[in-house]
């Protein structure tokens, strides 16, 4: 009991000591919190998107075959299907029609697709929530798109995809195949790419290899690769994230340096006084440790909570300028909170521990001083 009471006493003194430099320490806590907030926000955001991608794209097409000409993606002829349909393990092949439509009216890009189950009737479209909001068009309205030759084409909006599905459908327009081909003057007998279903998912790579052999100039993409694309999205090596990380590390180095570069004469004297009036070396070290922990722990806790609110309650509003870029159509990132304790713990050890340690190390030497030294100051 005495030990706990002694600890709390030491904590009391540490807090009094920190309050002496209110301005400096407040600034320190604020900046520290901001850095933790930034790192945690990035962590929560990227992890949630990656997790959601891995769940949502589980049933993406197993193999997609593209044709490349002179290094650019070209249209693929439907009769390629005959050449590869007999590969062992392939259960079905379909042509996929999709492309991009640039809407000059608002400067946005849409993804136009013909759904494989041919459910859309001619003259109708199903559109994403993002388009609906940007163009201010709703179910039952008419959507005007300009064909390749400038002709205005009108479509009846049958359905608007839910706002919750924005992450996959915000910019989507689904239409009938004939409408699609007319809109783009898309040549008959050609499609954008081919999609394959295989009997055994473990055979994907082998089948893809065979496709490359049979159809040189094509490029198969398998589902694993699609999923792995999103596993590494927002990887720390990506441009802006390097900058963020660099700035964060720099901040922490500055904080720790301030502490680790040694104690001022004033601090040394104070430690001498404490020792002279009866504090042991271990008490002094503990005080210094609390000094570091009070700042870093307070900042960490606050930063994490704020980051959670930022990402999952305000849809990462502070990241919006960065994520939006040149886009006009911007999905609201209403993410599902896929957070795990492991990440939070890692962030804790990376941010709190080094600072607490940086505070103790220089104090070690001073703490072992002979209490007698204050007598002769």
């Amino acid at each position, binding site marked *: 009991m005495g030990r706990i009471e002694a600890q*709390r006493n030491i904590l*009391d003194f540490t*807090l*009094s000591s920190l309050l002496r430099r209110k301005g400096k320490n407040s600034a320190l806590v604020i900046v520290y919190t901001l850095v933790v907030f930034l790192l945690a926000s990035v962590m929560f955001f990227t992890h949630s998107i990656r997790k*959601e*991608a891995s769940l*949502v*794209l*589980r*049933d*993406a*097409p197993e193999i*997609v075959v*593209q044709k490349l000409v002179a*290094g*650019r*993606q070209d249209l693929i002829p439907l009769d390629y299907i005959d050449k590869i349909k007999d590969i062992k393990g392939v259960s079905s092949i379909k042509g*996929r029609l999709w492309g991009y439509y640039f809407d000059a009216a608002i400067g946005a*890009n849409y*993804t136009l697709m013909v*759904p494989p189950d041919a459910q859309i009737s001619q003259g109708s479209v199903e559109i994403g929530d993002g388009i609906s909001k940007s163009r201010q068009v709703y179910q039952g309205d008419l959507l005007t798109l300009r064909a390749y030759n400038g002709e205005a084409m009108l479509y009846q909006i049958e359905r608007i*995809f*839910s706002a*919750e*599905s*924005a*992450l*996959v459908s915000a*910019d989507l327009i*689904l239409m009938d195949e004939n409408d699609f081909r007319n809109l783009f003057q898309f040549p008959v007998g050609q499609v954008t790419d081919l*999609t394959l279903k295989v009997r055994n998912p473990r055979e994907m*790579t082998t089948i*893809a290899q065979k496709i*490359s052999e049979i159809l040189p100039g094509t490029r198969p*993409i398998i589902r694993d*690769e*699609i999923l*792995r*694309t*999103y596993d*590494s*999205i*927002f990887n720390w090596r*990506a*441009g*802006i994230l390097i900058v963020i990380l660099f700035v964060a590390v720099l901040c922490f180095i500055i904080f720790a340096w301030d502490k680790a570069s040694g104690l001022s004469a004033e601090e040394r004297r104070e430690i001498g006084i404490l020792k002279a009036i009866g504090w042991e070396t271990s008490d002094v070290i503990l005080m210094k440790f609390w000094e570091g922990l009070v700042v870093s722990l307070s900042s960490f*806790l606050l930063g*994490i*909570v704020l980051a*959670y609110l930022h990402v999952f309650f305000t849809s990462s509003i502070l990241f919006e300028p960065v994520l939006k*870029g*040149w*886009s*006009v*159509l*911007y999905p609201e990132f209403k993410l*599902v*909170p*896929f*957070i795990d304790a492991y990440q939070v713990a890692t962030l804790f050890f990376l941010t709190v521990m080094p600072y607490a340690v940086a505070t103790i190390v220089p104090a070690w030497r001073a703490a072992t001083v002979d209490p007698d030294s204050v007598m002769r100051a």
Partner: protein
Amino acid sequence: MRKSSIYLLYVAANVIILCLVFIHAAYMRGAATDMLTEKSEMVKRFELTDLCLFTDARYARHLSMADMNSAFQDMPMAFEHFPSGSIMLPPPHIKRAHGTY
């Protein structure tokens, strides 16, 4: 009130909030199952391959379908789409073997 009491209360309050955060997250994950199912159904039905994260460029919109040259658009000196281009690296399958087998 003792300073150490105030501080320890602050820490305790934050730890409680943090626990609430985890509970809230778990609850939201449960509540989101329907939404996630809706999205994965759409992916399956419409044969989608990418999330709609960035709509400013083709290779940003369909990242997994991008090829080594799509970032160059029509010519090597075409503008980089910032900042989406600086947030995303090329997908692993492109980096490894230009998407070949």
